[in-house]
Protein backbone atom coordinates (compact mmCIF):
# COMPACT_ATOMS: atom_id res chain seq x y z
CA UNK A 1 0.00 0.00 0.00
CA UNK A 2 2.79 2.40 0.96
CA UNK A 3 4.62 1.67 -2.28
CA UNK A 4 1.47 2.29 -4.22
CA UNK A 5 0.93 5.66 -2.52
CA UNK A 6 4.56 6.65 -3.05
CA UNK A 7 4.36 5.85 -6.76
CA UNK A 8 1.11 7.78 -7.08
CA UNK A 9 2.67 10.75 -5.29
CA UNK A 10 5.65 10.69 -7.67
CA UNK A 11 3.40 10.49 -10.72
CA UNK A 12 1.24 13.39 -9.58
CA UNK A 13 4.30 15.46 -8.75
CA UNK A 14 5.74 14.76 -12.18
CA UNK A 15 2.47 15.69 -13.92
CA UNK A 16 2.22 18.92 -11.97
CA UNK A 17 5.82 19.72 -12.83
CA UNK A 18 5.22 19.11 -16.52
CA UNK A 19 2.12 21.30 -16.54
CA UNK A 20 3.93 24.05 -14.69
CA UNK A 21 6.85 23.80 -17.09
CA UNK A 22 4.55 24.07 -20.10
CA UNK A 23 2.79 27.14 -18.68
CA UNK A 24 5.97 29.00 -17.79
CA UNK A 25 7.53 28.67 -21.22
CA UNK A 26 4.51 30.21 -22.93
CA UNK A 27 3.91 29.50 -26.59
CA UNK A 28 7.37 28.30 -27.51
CA UNK A 29 6.35 24.67 -27.52
CA UNK A 30 3.62 25.17 -30.08
CA UNK A 31 4.70 25.43 -33.66
CA UNK A 32 3.86 28.98 -34.61
CA UNK A 33 1.52 29.34 -37.50
CA UNK A 34 3.77 30.95 -40.06
CA UNK A 35 0.85 31.80 -42.24
CA UNK A 36 -0.56 34.18 -39.70
CA UNK A 37 0.77 37.57 -38.88
CA UNK A 38 0.03 39.80 -35.98
CA UNK A 39 -2.18 42.51 -37.37
CA UNK A 40 -4.13 43.48 -34.28
CA UNK A 41 -3.57 47.10 -33.33
CA UNK A 42 -3.21 46.33 -29.62
CA UNK A 43 -0.09 44.58 -28.40
CA UNK A 44 -0.37 41.12 -26.92
CA UNK A 45 -0.51 40.82 -23.14
CA UNK A 46 2.95 40.75 -21.58
CA UNK A 47 4.01 37.68 -19.67
CA UNK A 48 6.36 37.79 -16.73
CA UNK A 49 9.76 36.13 -16.77
CA UNK A 50 9.19 34.93 -20.30
CA UNK A 51 12.52 34.75 -22.03
CA UNK A 52 11.27 32.77 -24.98
CA UNK A 53 8.41 35.05 -25.96
CA UNK A 54 8.03 35.33 -29.69
CA UNK A 55 5.42 36.40 -32.20
CA UNK A 56 4.33 34.31 -35.14
CA UNK A 57 6.25 35.88 -37.96
CA UNK A 58 5.59 36.37 -41.59
CA UNK A 59 8.25 34.20 -43.17
CA UNK A 60 9.83 35.52 -46.30
CA UNK A 61 10.09 33.61 -49.54
CA UNK A 62 13.74 33.15 -50.39
CA UNK A 63 14.63 34.83 -53.66
CA UNK A 64 17.03 32.09 -54.77
CA UNK A 65 16.83 28.36 -54.17
CA UNK A 66 17.50 27.97 -50.50
CA UNK A 67 19.87 25.31 -49.27
CA UNK A 68 18.43 25.12 -45.82
CA UNK A 69 16.70 22.00 -44.66
CA UNK A 70 17.10 22.93 -41.05
CA UNK A 71 14.68 21.79 -38.44
CA UNK A 72 12.51 23.97 -36.27
CA UNK A 73 14.58 26.35 -34.22
CA UNK A 74 12.85 28.80 -31.97
CA UNK A 75 15.15 31.08 -30.11
CA UNK A 76 14.90 34.63 -28.94
CA UNK A 77 17.08 37.23 -27.36
CA UNK A 78 15.55 40.21 -25.67
CA UNK A 79 17.43 43.43 -25.14
CA UNK A 80 16.59 45.95 -22.47
CA UNK A 81 15.16 48.87 -24.43
CA UNK A 82 12.05 50.88 -23.81
CA UNK A 83 9.27 49.67 -26.02
CA UNK A 84 5.92 51.21 -26.78
CA UNK A 85 5.31 49.35 -30.02
CA UNK A 86 3.64 46.18 -31.15
CA UNK A 87 6.54 43.81 -30.53
CA UNK A 88 9.23 43.25 -27.95
CA UNK A 89 12.67 44.46 -28.93
CA UNK A 90 15.24 41.90 -29.93
CA UNK A 91 15.94 39.28 -32.57
CA UNK A 92 13.47 36.54 -33.18
CA UNK A 93 14.01 33.48 -35.31
CA UNK A 94 10.99 31.86 -36.86
CA UNK A 95 10.68 28.16 -37.36
CA UNK A 96 11.71 26.66 -40.65
CA UNK A 97 9.03 26.71 -43.33
CA UNK A 98 8.53 24.91 -46.59
CA UNK A 99 8.74 27.48 -49.37
CA UNK A 100 7.97 25.11 -52.24
CA UNK A 101 11.52 24.88 -53.50
CA UNK A 102 13.28 24.47 -50.21
CA UNK A 103 13.09 25.50 -46.61
CA UNK A 104 13.17 29.07 -45.46
CA UNK A 105 13.90 30.51 -42.08
CA UNK A 106 13.87 34.14 -41.20
CA UNK A 107 15.02 36.27 -38.35
CA UNK A 108 13.16 39.42 -37.44
CA UNK A 109 14.90 42.31 -35.74
CA UNK A 110 12.64 44.37 -33.54
CA UNK A 111 13.65 47.88 -32.61
CA UNK A 112 11.44 50.32 -30.77
CA UNK A 113 8.64 47.84 -30.88
CA UNK A 114 8.53 47.52 -34.65
CA UNK A 115 9.98 45.19 -37.25
CA UNK A 116 13.12 46.95 -38.44
CA UNK A 117 14.55 44.17 -40.55
CA UNK A 118 13.90 40.62 -41.67
CA UNK A 119 16.87 38.45 -42.58
CA UNK A 120 16.99 35.13 -44.36
CA UNK A 121 19.06 32.55 -42.52
CA UNK A 122 21.27 29.96 -44.12
CA UNK A 123 21.46 26.58 -42.55
CA UNK A 124 23.84 23.71 -42.91
CA UNK A 125 22.08 21.25 -45.13
CA UNK A 126 22.35 18.03 -46.96
CA UNK A 127 24.00 19.56 -50.00
CA UNK A 128 23.30 16.83 -52.53
CA UNK A 129 19.62 16.65 -51.64
CA UNK A 130 19.11 20.37 -51.70
CA UNK A 131 20.90 20.66 -55.04
CA UNK A 132 18.45 18.15 -56.46
CA UNK A 133 15.54 20.09 -55.04
CA UNK A 134 16.91 23.31 -56.50
CA UNK A 135 17.39 21.84 -59.94
CA UNK A 136 13.99 20.23 -60.04
CA UNK A 137 11.83 22.83 -58.42
CA UNK A 138 13.40 26.11 -59.48
CA UNK A 139 14.43 26.29 -63.11
CA UNK A 140 16.62 29.22 -64.02
CA UNK A 141 14.29 31.79 -65.48
CA UNK A 142 14.84 32.97 -69.02
CA UNK A 143 15.48 36.54 -69.91
CA UNK A 144 15.43 38.71 -72.99
CA UNK A 145 15.98 42.30 -74.01
CA UNK A 146 12.64 44.03 -74.38
CA UNK A 147 11.72 44.75 -77.99
CA UNK A 148 9.15 46.93 -79.65
CA UNK A 149 6.32 44.90 -81.14
CA UNK A 150 3.31 45.54 -83.28
CA UNK A 151 0.83 47.88 -81.65
CA UNK A 152 -2.08 46.07 -83.31
CA UNK A 153 -3.70 44.98 -80.06
CA UNK A 154 -7.15 45.14 -78.47
CA UNK A 155 -5.99 46.47 -75.11
CA UNK A 156 -2.82 47.44 -73.27
CA UNK A 157 -1.64 46.57 -69.79
CA UNK A 158 0.73 48.94 -68.05
CA UNK A 159 1.51 50.36 -64.65
CA UNK A 160 -0.78 53.23 -63.90
CA UNK A 161 -0.26 56.37 -61.88
CA UNK A 162 -2.86 55.09 -59.46
CA UNK A 163 -1.15 51.81 -58.53
CA UNK A 164 -1.62 50.98 -54.87
CA UNK A 165 2.04 51.19 -54.03
CA UNK A 166 2.33 54.58 -55.65
CA UNK A 167 -0.60 55.85 -53.64
CA UNK A 168 0.86 54.40 -50.50
CA UNK A 169 4.15 56.16 -51.14
CA UNK A 170 2.34 59.35 -51.97
CA UNK A 171 0.19 59.14 -48.86
CA UNK A 172 3.21 58.76 -46.61
CA UNK A 173 4.83 61.74 -48.27
CA UNK A 174 1.67 63.73 -47.67
CA UNK A 175 1.63 62.63 -44.06
CA UNK A 176 5.15 63.92 -43.56
CA UNK A 177 4.18 67.15 -45.17
CA UNK A 178 1.12 67.60 -42.97
CA UNK A 179 1.30 69.58 -39.76
Amino acid at each position, binding site marked *: MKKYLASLFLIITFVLFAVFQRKSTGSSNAAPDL*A*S*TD*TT*PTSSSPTTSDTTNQQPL*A*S*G*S*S*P*TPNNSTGNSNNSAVTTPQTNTGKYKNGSYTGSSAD*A*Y*YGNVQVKAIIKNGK*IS*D*VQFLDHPSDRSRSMMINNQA*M*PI*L*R*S*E*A*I*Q*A*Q*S*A*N*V*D*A*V*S*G*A*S*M*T*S*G*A*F*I*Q*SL*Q*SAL*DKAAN
Partner: protein
Amino acid sequence: MNMPVSIEIVDSKDEAVFDEIYQFFREIEARFSIFQPNSEISKINRHEIKPSKYSREMKEIFDLAEKTKRESFGYFDIENDGRLNPSGIVKGWAIYQAAKKLKSKKINDFYIEAGGDIQTSGLNVDGFKWQVGIRNPFDHSQIIKTLTLSGEGVATSGNYERGRHIYNPISPASPLTEIVSITVIGPTILEADRFATAAFAMGKSGINFIESRPNLGGYAIDQTKTAVFTTNFERYANQNVMAR
Protein backbone atom coordinates in the same frame (compact mmCIF):
# COMPACT_ATOMS: atom_id res chain seq x y z
CA MET B 1 -8.62 54.64 -57.86
CA ASN B 2 -9.99 57.40 -60.04
CA MET B 3 -8.71 55.75 -63.17
CA PRO B 4 -10.05 55.43 -66.70
CA VAL B 5 -12.21 52.40 -67.38
CA SER B 6 -12.52 50.80 -70.84
CA ILE B 7 -15.05 48.16 -71.74
CA GLU B 8 -15.51 46.33 -75.02
CA ILE B 9 -18.50 44.01 -75.40
CA VAL B 10 -18.82 41.86 -78.50
CA ASP B 11 -21.85 39.67 -77.98
CA SER B 12 -24.45 42.15 -76.80
CA LYS B 13 -26.01 45.32 -78.20
CA ASP B 14 -27.42 46.39 -74.84
CA GLU B 15 -26.16 49.95 -74.29
CA ALA B 16 -27.54 50.23 -70.75
CA VAL B 17 -25.08 47.68 -69.43
CA PHE B 18 -22.17 50.09 -70.01
CA ASP B 19 -23.82 52.68 -67.76
CA GLU B 20 -24.40 50.03 -65.14
CA ILE B 21 -20.73 49.04 -65.12
CA TYR B 22 -19.46 52.63 -65.05
CA GLN B 23 -21.86 53.41 -62.21
CA PHE B 24 -20.51 50.38 -60.36
CA PHE B 25 -16.94 51.74 -60.67
CA ARG B 26 -18.11 55.13 -59.38
CA GLU B 27 -19.56 53.39 -56.32
CA ILE B 28 -16.27 51.56 -55.81
CA GLU B 29 -14.49 54.90 -55.93
CA ALA B 30 -16.88 56.41 -53.39
CA ARG B 31 -16.30 53.55 -51.00
CA PHE B 32 -12.59 52.87 -51.34
CA SER B 33 -10.85 56.09 -52.32
CA ILE B 34 -8.55 57.39 -49.58
CA PHE B 35 -8.62 60.78 -51.31
CA GLN B 36 -12.35 61.18 -50.69
CA PRO B 37 -12.90 62.28 -47.08
CA ASN B 38 -16.40 60.78 -46.95
CA SER B 39 -15.49 57.38 -48.35
CA GLU B 40 -15.98 54.37 -46.13
CA ILE B 41 -12.22 53.73 -46.03
CA SER B 42 -11.51 57.32 -44.94
CA LYS B 43 -14.08 56.99 -42.16
CA ILE B 44 -12.56 53.69 -41.10
CA ASN B 45 -9.13 55.31 -40.96
CA ARG B 46 -10.57 58.02 -38.71
CA HIS B 47 -12.08 55.25 -36.55
CA GLU B 48 -15.60 56.50 -37.21
CA ILE B 49 -16.93 53.06 -38.08
CA LYS B 50 -16.88 49.96 -35.89
CA PRO B 51 -15.59 46.75 -37.53
CA SER B 52 -18.98 45.10 -37.04
CA LYS B 53 -20.48 47.89 -39.16
CA TYR B 54 -18.12 47.58 -42.11
CA SER B 55 -19.90 47.03 -45.41
CA ARG B 56 -19.91 43.55 -46.94
CA GLU B 57 -17.61 44.79 -49.71
CA MET B 58 -15.13 46.28 -47.23
CA LYS B 59 -15.03 43.06 -45.21
CA GLU B 60 -14.45 41.11 -48.38
CA ILE B 61 -11.57 43.38 -49.35
CA PHE B 62 -9.99 43.14 -45.89
CA ASP B 63 -10.26 39.35 -45.96
CA LEU B 64 -8.66 39.26 -49.39
CA ALA B 65 -5.90 41.60 -48.22
CA GLU B 66 -5.17 39.39 -45.24
CA LYS B 67 -5.07 36.28 -47.40
CA THR B 68 -2.74 37.96 -49.89
CA LYS B 69 -0.49 39.16 -47.08
CA ARG B 70 -0.13 35.57 -45.84
CA GLU B 71 0.49 34.15 -49.27
CA SER B 72 3.07 36.81 -50.05
CA PHE B 73 4.91 36.34 -46.75
CA GLY B 74 3.97 39.82 -45.61
CA TYR B 75 5.11 41.69 -48.71
CA PHE B 76 1.57 42.62 -49.60
CA ASP B 77 0.27 44.85 -46.83
CA ILE B 78 -2.52 47.41 -47.04
CA GLU B 79 -1.51 48.95 -43.74
CA ASN B 80 1.05 51.72 -43.69
CA ASP B 81 1.75 53.91 -40.66
CA GLY B 82 -1.46 52.78 -39.00
CA ARG B 83 -3.53 53.71 -42.04
CA LEU B 84 -5.32 51.30 -44.34
CA ASN B 85 -5.10 51.73 -48.11
CA PRO B 86 -6.54 48.81 -50.06
CA SER B 87 -6.20 50.35 -53.52
CA GLY B 88 -3.58 47.77 -54.52
CA ILE B 89 -6.23 45.10 -54.32
CA VAL B 90 -9.50 46.93 -54.97
CA LYS B 91 -8.79 47.49 -58.65
CA GLY B 92 -8.53 43.81 -59.57
CA TRP B 93 -11.40 42.89 -57.28
CA ALA B 94 -13.67 45.56 -58.79
CA ILE B 95 -12.92 44.56 -62.37
CA TYR B 96 -13.59 40.95 -61.43
CA GLN B 97 -16.97 41.87 -59.89
CA ALA B 98 -17.86 43.86 -63.00
CA ALA B 99 -16.96 40.89 -65.21
CA LYS B 100 -19.21 38.67 -63.07
CA LYS B 101 -22.04 41.11 -63.64
CA LEU B 102 -21.61 40.83 -67.42
CA LYS B 103 -21.46 37.05 -67.26
CA SER B 104 -24.65 37.00 -65.18
CA LYS B 105 -26.31 38.75 -68.12
CA LYS B 106 -25.06 35.96 -70.41
CA ILE B 107 -22.46 38.27 -71.97
CA ASN B 108 -19.35 36.20 -72.66
CA ASP B 109 -17.16 38.00 -75.22
CA PHE B 110 -15.73 41.12 -73.62
CA TYR B 111 -12.87 42.74 -71.84
CA ILE B 112 -12.89 45.24 -68.99
CA GLU B 113 -9.86 47.41 -68.36
CA ALA B 114 -9.25 49.78 -65.47
CA GLY B 115 -5.96 51.47 -64.73
CA GLY B 116 -3.91 49.07 -66.84
CA ASP B 117 -5.45 45.90 -65.39
CA ILE B 118 -7.55 43.76 -67.73
CA GLN B 119 -10.05 40.94 -67.45
CA THR B 120 -10.68 39.12 -70.72
CA SER B 121 -13.50 36.78 -71.62
CA GLY B 122 -14.23 34.83 -74.76
CA LEU B 123 -13.21 36.22 -78.16
CA ASN B 124 -12.76 39.62 -79.77
CA VAL B 125 -14.87 41.04 -82.58
CA ASP B 126 -12.79 39.19 -85.19
CA GLY B 127 -13.43 35.88 -83.49
CA PHE B 128 -9.90 35.56 -82.15
CA LYS B 129 -8.65 35.49 -78.57
CA TRP B 130 -8.01 38.93 -77.15
CA GLN B 131 -4.69 40.53 -78.09
CA VAL B 132 -3.28 42.39 -75.12
CA GLY B 133 -0.09 44.41 -75.28
CA ILE B 134 2.35 45.13 -72.49
CA ARG B 135 3.34 48.77 -72.41
CA ASN B 136 7.03 49.65 -72.53
CA PRO B 137 7.68 51.26 -69.14
CA PHE B 138 10.45 53.36 -70.75
CA ASP B 139 8.33 54.57 -73.67
CA HIS B 140 4.60 54.50 -73.09
CA SER B 141 3.82 54.79 -76.76
CA GLN B 142 5.39 51.39 -77.40
CA ILE B 143 4.26 47.80 -76.92
CA ILE B 144 7.03 45.37 -76.00
CA LYS B 145 5.04 42.14 -75.80
CA THR B 146 1.70 40.92 -77.11
CA LEU B 147 -0.34 38.33 -75.25
CA THR B 148 -3.15 36.10 -76.45
CA LEU B 149 -5.78 35.74 -73.74
CA SER B 150 -9.28 34.35 -73.38
CA GLY B 151 -10.59 34.35 -69.83
CA GLU B 152 -7.32 35.24 -68.12
CA GLY B 153 -6.64 38.45 -66.27
CA VAL B 154 -3.47 40.51 -66.64
CA ALA B 155 -2.16 43.16 -64.27
CA THR B 156 0.97 45.29 -64.34
CA SER B 157 2.49 46.77 -61.22
CA GLY B 158 5.28 49.25 -61.41
CA ASN B 159 6.67 52.73 -61.16
CA TYR B 160 5.40 55.42 -63.38
CA GLU B 161 8.80 57.03 -63.24
CA ARG B 162 11.99 55.06 -63.29
CA GLY B 163 13.66 54.60 -59.95
CA ARG B 164 10.82 55.82 -57.76
CA HIS B 165 10.81 54.26 -54.34
CA ILE B 166 8.09 51.73 -53.62
CA TYR B 167 7.22 51.00 -50.03
CA ASN B 168 8.49 47.66 -48.80
CA PRO B 169 6.65 46.75 -45.61
CA ILE B 170 9.33 44.29 -44.54
CA SER B 171 12.36 46.54 -44.87
CA PRO B 172 11.10 50.06 -45.36
CA ALA B 173 14.60 51.44 -45.58
CA SER B 174 15.64 49.31 -48.55
CA PRO B 175 14.89 50.77 -51.94
CA LEU B 176 13.25 48.62 -54.57
CA THR B 177 14.49 50.35 -57.62
CA GLU B 178 15.72 47.28 -59.45
CA ILE B 179 12.45 46.24 -61.10
CA VAL B 180 10.60 48.86 -63.10
CA SER B 181 7.47 46.84 -63.78
CA ILE B 182 6.11 43.33 -63.44
CA THR B 183 3.21 41.97 -65.46
CA VAL B 184 1.30 39.01 -64.06
CA ILE B 185 -1.15 36.78 -65.94
CA GLY B 186 -3.61 34.88 -63.75
CA PRO B 187 -6.75 32.78 -64.09
CA THR B 188 -8.68 35.96 -63.19
CA ILE B 189 -7.77 39.65 -62.88
CA LEU B 190 -8.34 39.25 -59.14
CA GLU B 191 -5.47 36.78 -58.85
CA ALA B 192 -3.27 38.67 -61.29
CA ASP B 193 -3.70 42.02 -59.56
CA ARG B 194 -3.11 40.98 -55.97
CA PHE B 195 -0.01 38.99 -56.84
CA ALA B 196 1.38 41.64 -59.19
CA THR B 197 1.23 44.13 -56.34
CA ALA B 198 2.89 41.69 -53.95
CA ALA B 199 5.53 40.63 -56.45
CA PHE B 200 6.48 44.22 -57.24
CA ALA B 201 7.05 44.92 -53.55
CA MET B 202 9.54 42.05 -53.49
CA GLY B 203 11.81 43.69 -56.05
CA LYS B 204 14.04 41.28 -57.93
CA SER B 205 12.67 38.30 -55.99
CA GLY B 206 9.15 38.97 -57.20
CA ILE B 207 9.52 37.04 -60.43
CA ASN B 208 10.67 33.98 -58.47
CA PHE B 209 7.64 34.32 -56.25
CA ILE B 210 5.42 34.30 -59.35
CA GLU B 211 7.31 31.26 -60.67
CA SER B 212 6.56 29.45 -57.42
CA ARG B 213 2.83 29.79 -58.01
CA PRO B 214 2.02 27.43 -60.90
CA ASN B 215 -1.20 29.14 -62.01
CA LEU B 216 0.53 32.49 -62.65
CA GLY B 217 2.75 33.80 -65.45
CA GLY B 218 5.11 36.71 -64.90
CA TYR B 219 7.18 39.16 -66.94
CA ALA B 220 9.45 41.50 -64.99
CA ILE B 221 11.41 44.35 -66.55
CA ASP B 222 14.44 45.88 -64.86
CA GLN B 223 16.26 49.15 -65.26
CA THR B 224 18.60 47.72 -67.88
CA LYS B 225 15.55 47.03 -70.08
CA THR B 226 16.01 43.31 -69.58
CA ALA B 227 12.95 41.17 -68.98
CA VAL B 228 12.86 37.97 -66.94
CA PHE B 229 9.86 35.70 -67.39
CA THR B 230 8.44 32.62 -65.74
CA THR B 231 7.89 29.12 -67.11
CA ASN B 232 4.15 29.67 -67.44
CA PHE B 233 4.41 33.00 -69.22
CA GLU B 234 5.49 31.97 -72.71
CA ARG B 235 2.32 30.07 -73.54
CA TYR B 236 0.52 33.43 -73.68
CA ALA B 237 3.16 35.39 -75.55
CA ASN B 238 3.06 35.86 -79.31
CA GLN B 239 6.13 35.49 -81.43
CA ASN B 240 8.18 38.62 -81.77
CA VAL B 241 6.64 40.99 -84.28
CA MET B 242 8.68 44.09 -84.92
CA ALA B 243 6.87 47.40 -84.92
CA ARG B 244 6.27 48.65 -88.42
